[in-house]
């Protein structure tokens, strides 16, 4: 067991970034190899974490705590529990795959990989940070590389998409900054009595002092946090950055965007909003608003997906729908729903990653993504079609593949919620099941079935590099579909604890309004 493993997994890419920066610009292969090695090492570390993770405790593990800025009581404080470990694993996996998928990047290679590694570090950092300030730093650090990765290496409207992404997410995070400050000044450190950024202290309602005991302030803080996270998820109507960003981003970045970045919104809610301000979360106007938005996400996202003619945009909107399921699962505050939601975060990361990679494969060959511009690829590219069908069916929630179980749990959890009556919402949400099947199959049909488009009679089959990126995800799709416990075991104890904490949090403050 490696000591300080979390620091290693966060800062390893930074080391890699510096090495890449030191390499001469012409040594493109060396740069790529270094990046692959460092993200590969990250996977090794992630595996170590997986192996050594104690699934029976609710407390934080692999904790490291070093004082950073004394006067503001800011700590370098990292640690993971069941919620974060799944995200750490996902990030490590997708980062590596994205690096492999980036192999054909040819423009400004050095800058690309350096920025990518920085992004990687930022993502990891978000998932391990337990000090809110540190969390915020990592959260913001991701924006910058993302802006450039979309803006320089993206599609035709990349500049527009990049700035849109940047502005949107910054808007969310500055609101989060204010919320963070309100929390800081009104949570006391049980040890020193001073203010604290320590999330664990913040979660203990007994530490809340000052205006944080006023319900309207709590609602305000919750709302600010919510908008910050909602933009990332993204929740309707804060979602319009997503289709553009996804479409314009290069394939590996789309993978990261959909696979990891979207999860940060829901992760933030589960790590911060819910446990720190449970009563605001449970306040009925908020909760029902939340669920309404979740359902809108599902139905609206799916309908929009159906309307798209651009394959990548379709996948992007499909993500909006699937994240809606995550939100629905979370809202019910049942252990089934919560576990389903987080598992869905993981699964969606895998499936959407796969879908974007698949889109990338044909985009590389055909240089367009018009759904109607293909047709009959199944007879030309059988292996590709097979993998694509797997991903498509996973995406539409076919049992035996990973998305099914997480979606089913999310719906079950929401429907069976005893704390709130979400039955009608869930029933509307299940419309998404039909709609998703509708647009996925329709797409499958238009792209792969029918007579082969004569333009593509010489379309080459997927190559080895592409298979290296696709197959591991495909295997996970099946394995997790059959045996979700691989991930659920990690989550369960922590999430059940989370559910209990939020459920049992006193609602007496409601009266003080």
């Amino acid at each position, binding site marked *: 067991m490696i000591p300080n493993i979390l620091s290693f997994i966060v800062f390893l890419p930074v080391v890699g970034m510096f090495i890449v920066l030191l390499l001469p610009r012409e040594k493109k292969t060396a740069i790529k190899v270094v990046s692959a090695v460092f993200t590969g090492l990250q996977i090794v570390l992630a595996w170590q974490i997986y192996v050594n993770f104690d699934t029976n405790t609710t407390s934080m593990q692999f904790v490291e705590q070093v004082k950073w800025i*004394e006067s503001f009581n800011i700590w370098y404080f990292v640690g993971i529990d069941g919620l974060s470990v799944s995200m750490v694993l996902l990030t490590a996996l997708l980062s590596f795959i994205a690096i492999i998928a980036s192999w054909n990047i040819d423009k400004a290679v050095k800058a690309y990989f350096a920025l990518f590694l920085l992004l990687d570090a930022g993502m990891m950092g978000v998932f391990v940070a337990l000090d809110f300030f540190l969390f915020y*730093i990592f959260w913001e650090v991701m924006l910058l590389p993302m802006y450039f990765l979309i803006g320089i290496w993206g599609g035709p409207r990349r500049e527009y998409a*990049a700035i849109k992404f940047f502005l949107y997410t*910054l*808007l969310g995070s500055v609101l989060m900054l204010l919320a963070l400050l309100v929390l*800081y000044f009104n949570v006391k450190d049980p040890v020193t009595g001073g203010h604290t950024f320590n999330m664990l202290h913040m979660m203990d309602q007994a530490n809340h002092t000052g205006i944080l005991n006023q319900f309207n302030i709590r609602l305000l803080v919750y709302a600010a946090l919510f908008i910050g996270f909602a933009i990332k998820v993204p929740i309707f109507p804060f979602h319009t950055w997503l289709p553009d960003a996804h479409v314009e981003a290069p394939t590996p970045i789309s993978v990261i965007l959909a696979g990891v970045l979207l999860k940060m919104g829901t992760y933030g809610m589960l790590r911060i909003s819910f446990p720190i301000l449970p009563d605001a979360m449970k306040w009925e106007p908020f909760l029902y608003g939340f669920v309404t938005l979740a359902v809108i996400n599902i139905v609206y996202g799916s309908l929009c997906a159906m309307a798209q003619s651009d394959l990548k945009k379709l996948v992007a909107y499909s993500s909006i729908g699937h994240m809606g399921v995550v939100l629905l699962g979370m809202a019910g505050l049942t252990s089934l729903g919560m576990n389903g939601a987080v598992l869905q975060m993981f699964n969606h990361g895998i499936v959407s990653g796969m879908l974007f990679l698949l889109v990338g494969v044909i985009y590389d060959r055909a240089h367009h993504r018009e759904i109607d511009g293909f047709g009959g690829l199944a007879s030309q590219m059988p292996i590709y079609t097979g993998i694509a069908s797997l991903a498509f069916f996973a995406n539409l929630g076919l049992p035996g593949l990973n998305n099914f179980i997480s979606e089913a749990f999310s719906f079950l959890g929401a429907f069976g919620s005893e704390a709130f009556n979400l039955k009608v919402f869930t029933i509307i949400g299940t419309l998404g099941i039909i709609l998703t099947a509708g647009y996925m199959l329709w797409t499958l049909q238009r792209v792969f079935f029918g007579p082969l488009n004569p333009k593509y009679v010489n379309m080459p089959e997927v190559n080895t590099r592409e298979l290296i990126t696709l197959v591991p995800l495909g295997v996970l799709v099946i394995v997790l579909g059959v045996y979700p416990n691989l991930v659920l075991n990690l989550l369960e104890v922590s999430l059940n604890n989370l559910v209990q904490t939020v459920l049992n949090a006193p609602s007496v403050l409601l009266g003080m309004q």
Partner: protein
Amino acid sequence: MEFGHYLQINLASLPYFIPELILVGTLLLLIIVDLVLKDKPSAGWLSLIALSGVIIALIAVIGQYDLGTRSLFNGVLVLDHFSLFFKVLFLAAAALAILFTMASIELAGRPVGEYYTLLITLVLGMFLMAASTNLIMIYISIELVSITSFVLAAYIKRATRSSEAGLKYAIYGAFSSGLMLYGFSWLYGLTGTLDLYQLARSLSEVASQNPLAIFLSVLFILAGFGYKIAAVPFHFWAPDVYEGAPTPMTAFFSVGPKAAGFALLIRFFVSGMAQPSLVESSMWQAIGDIHWPQLLAVISAATMTLGNLIALVQNNVKRLLAYSSIAHAGYALMGTVVLTQEGYFATLFYLVAYYLMNMGAFLVVIVFQDLIGSEKIDDYRGLGYRAPIAAIAMGIFLFSLTGLPPTVGFIGKFYLFAALIKAGEAYYWLAIVGVLNSVISLYYYVKIMKYMFLDRPAEEKAGALPVTLSMNLMLVVLMVPIILFGLYWAPLQEFTRNSIQFFTGTF
């Protein structure tokens, strides 16, 4: 009291006045050397003299940190950590301005003797601004700074835009100080004193009788201060002057006199128009019913919003940065409205951060101006590929100006917002205005980034630009602390926190 007694006090004050004396010595030396070396290529020597004078003064200032707090020259000036903080900042800005001047070709070939003389005089004036506790001294120091600024702005005699900048500066400046003076005269009439501390005492008696009259004089006075920090609605001169003045001077103007204005503003309001809060030791409260904190809050919000909105539509980088610097004055003002230790600390901290990043940004403008002969944002297209170090440095300065971690600009904003949030719900609105402004500002900062990195250079001018080593070195020197302090800012914070010790006693 007899004349001898005053002389005694004045002589006794002199040992505490050494940095100022060094500056006076330097400027005299500059004049002499300039005369002696007339018609000979003397720029190098003069620059060196000016630079060494500044550095020696800096050493002397740092030496004064142990001297404690005291009143000088019969209470017209003070020596306290607060003023020392600003003096360090002024000297650092001046040093960079000199270095910029040396490196820039905009001023090459022009007689620099007067230029440096004026610059050092300007610094001297700012020293006095930061340390004044008497209305006469405040007026004189402001005038000293203003008059030299007018000349410096108009320094490139043959360039119309430089002259025009000087003229506007002069008229607007003289007008503003006229208003301020009129305000001073009313304040004097209402309280019967020119000393800030007595003013506070006297105000607490008369404030309730004449709140509107006092407020009116405060408004008049704010016209003077606001003009110095370029706060809305007294900012109008700034964009034109910033654009018209020689770029090294613009860099200096946007940091030095602005900081001096903040020093004055804070001291005037804290010492003269506020009293320590009875509730909490680290807080003050406004005297009487004069709502100047609210007034500052409105001005702060208006300043950042207007600065950012207009910056949004600029195509000239220099002018864009001018508006951005207006916006930053608005941010820094946020710290002054809450009347807390944290607030003033945040403002001071922000000024340091602003010094680093704004100087850096202007340096890049100088670099590109020298190399491509343009300040137009369109001409920045593809510079990321032609001058990567400068462009990356620009990126870091701009992100710091936006307030993104891990840069010192983020920490500065963080402290400002922290101060507001800590002060309670009454200031949440200002904090929200502040963060929304950050988002708006991102757009135009990133616009520059877009042109530099996202756009490719035109075919005919794709070659690498010959950025000199000294320029690159300076860029790195500015870039590194921005990141370093963004990651570990405890030293800077200690330094700043140590500076919130006002001279509060009476004599």
